[in-house]
């Protein structure tokens, strides 16, 4: 009995810290959603009256549909191009051994370690002088600076985990190079690439510094819209701002849960080490 009390007393501070942190996190999320569905919410535990007005009005007031499409266009393109560039390089970095490998790995980490401002400001200044700024191409290009290194950093561990003896075994059993790539390498790569894809997508979707520096009214993503609206909010009601945040939260949560589900499915389908 005494021992149990003792154990509880030792655990108590940990339990308190965890609950405090989780309560804050949940409070932040729940109040946004509650606030989005309420008219006025002052001084009570729960809002006094519920409404769909904010959610409906925010859609047209903030042109959410347009921003979804612009974000999708930019981020899908940037993610796709980043992966196309990163996959061959990641494969070599994970599999082959060569003199400048360590140096190259550090080089590819730099863009995600250094502040985005350091790259963004000179790039914006350059892009403005050659007319690339505020265009789709300009924003996609600048997002690739983050997309490629981030993709590499997620992809390489997956590729390192692949057993190259399987490929050698296939070759000794008579498979040619093409068969090895299509039947052995690519199926093994699918889980890693899917995970990378979703993570890069979410990261680029949430990027604010580079898009804010390089983008223009026609190429601002939803992230920028949310940021600038929240930063300059004067007359909008809290409920409307919450509705905007909810619209921003939906794709973020959607893609993250997709990544969790896919990871589980792919693990079962292809197996993992």
């Amino acid at each position, binding site marked *: 009995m005494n021992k149990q009390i003792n154990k509880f007393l030792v655990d108590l501070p940990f339990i308190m810290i965890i609950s405090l942190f989780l309560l804050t996190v949940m409070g932040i999320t729940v*109040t946004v959603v509650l606030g989005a569905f309420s008219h006025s919410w002052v001084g009570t535990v729960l809002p006094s009256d519920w409404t769909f007005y904010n959610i409906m009005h925010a859609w047209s007031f903030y042109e959410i549909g347009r921003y979804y499409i612009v974000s999708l266009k930019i981020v899908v393109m940037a993610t796709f191009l980043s992966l196309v560039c990163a996959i061959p390089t*990641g*494969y070599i*970095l994970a599999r082959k051994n060569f003199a400048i490998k360590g140096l190259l790995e550090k080089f590819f980490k730099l863009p995600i370690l250094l502040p985005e401002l350091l*790259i963004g400001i000179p790039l914006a200044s350059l892009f403005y002088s050659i007319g690339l700024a505020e265009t789709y191409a300009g924003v996609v290009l600048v997002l690739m600076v983050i997309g490629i290194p981030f993709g590499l950093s997620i992809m390489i561990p997956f590729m390192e985990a692949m057993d190259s003896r399987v490929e050698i075994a296939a070759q000794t059993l008579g498979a040619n190079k093409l068969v090895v790539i299509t039947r052995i390498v690519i199926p093994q790569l699918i889980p890693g690439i899917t995970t990378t894809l979703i993570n890069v997508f979410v990261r680029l979707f949430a990027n604010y510094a580079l898009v804010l520096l390089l983008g223009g009214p026609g190429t601002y993503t939803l992230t920028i819209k949310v940021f600038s609206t929240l930063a300059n909010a004067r007359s909008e009601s809290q409920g409307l701002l919450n509705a905007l945040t909810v619209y921003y939260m939906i794709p973020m949560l959607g893609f993250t849960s997709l990544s969790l589900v896919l990871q589980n499915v792919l693990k079962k389908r292809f197996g993992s080490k």
Partner: protein
Amino acid sequence: MEQQIKKGDYLLLLPSAIPITILFILPLLYSLSLIFTTPVYDELGKEIYSDSNYEYHYKGEINRYRQYNPETNEYTGNDLRPYDIKSRSEIYKQVKTWGFQNIKTFFMTKRYRVTILNTFRLVIPASLVQFLLAFSMAYYLRKKIRGKFFLTTMIIFPLTLGSLIIASGMTNLFRTSGWFNLFLLKVGLIENPIVILYTYWGTFIAITIGGTAFLFSGFLAICEQFDPNLEVAALTLGANRFKTFLLIFLPLTMPSLLGIFSLGTVLMLGLYPSAVLVGDPVNTTRVFAVAAFEEFQQAFNYNMAATVSLVLTLSQVVVLIVLGRIRRLFYIGFGGTFK
């Protein structure tokens, strides 16, 4: 199993190496040229333009740029409208000088200089609090306990939300009529609501939430990998739990923890949305990024904006060096399980 590289394999490195070199290394070099050039202004504080033969000085009364011949030292009488000059930047270049003027300005002017102090005043306490929170949670959750998956997922959840949603949610939770103040008032801990939003503490809490989730996601793996046999060995030899933690667990995990900690701290130095949305970006949370964006978007002074981001980068390097030194004080070895 690693293989030796063949010649053709180097080609496969190019798809990443070329874009990164063009879009990252070249801008960095260009950034240096931005930092070390300053626009030249005339006595009236107006910029001077030049094609390779003539200079153009602005004259306010007639709203024209007057063509000036530096060799003969006189105006030629050929005046141009401001639009003609500014719309043709390929011919008329702003006159700039090389030098350390921007860096001097940064350290001489108070509104730039305070960014260093403000950033570190936020980041140092916040990162220490994050470390304590994340480490104690990871230490407790390292063993298999009931509800572990749910708890760890929820602790990492703020990473998914991102700093914008955290800030937006905080404006609900921490406002004077929000749940936080409501609870404290009900319990009787305070008599008047505490103002947290749009002060130093708003930003402090926002970065602490995001940073703790980031550190925890790294710390948990480190704490899980720690070999429990080492703890058992210490316990059987007569150490109590606290002593085991202090003399066995902490020293062996510290180097890896500090590795993640320095990454988190370095990334935090560039904070921006939380400083603007829930902080007081004019006074106490005027951090590096706030000043840099202000120079870029409002003053159009790209040279100064680049200088601010250089100082930000240098502070990151300083933090990395200091934390690297601290890390070397610990034994760097293997405390993991041989599975």
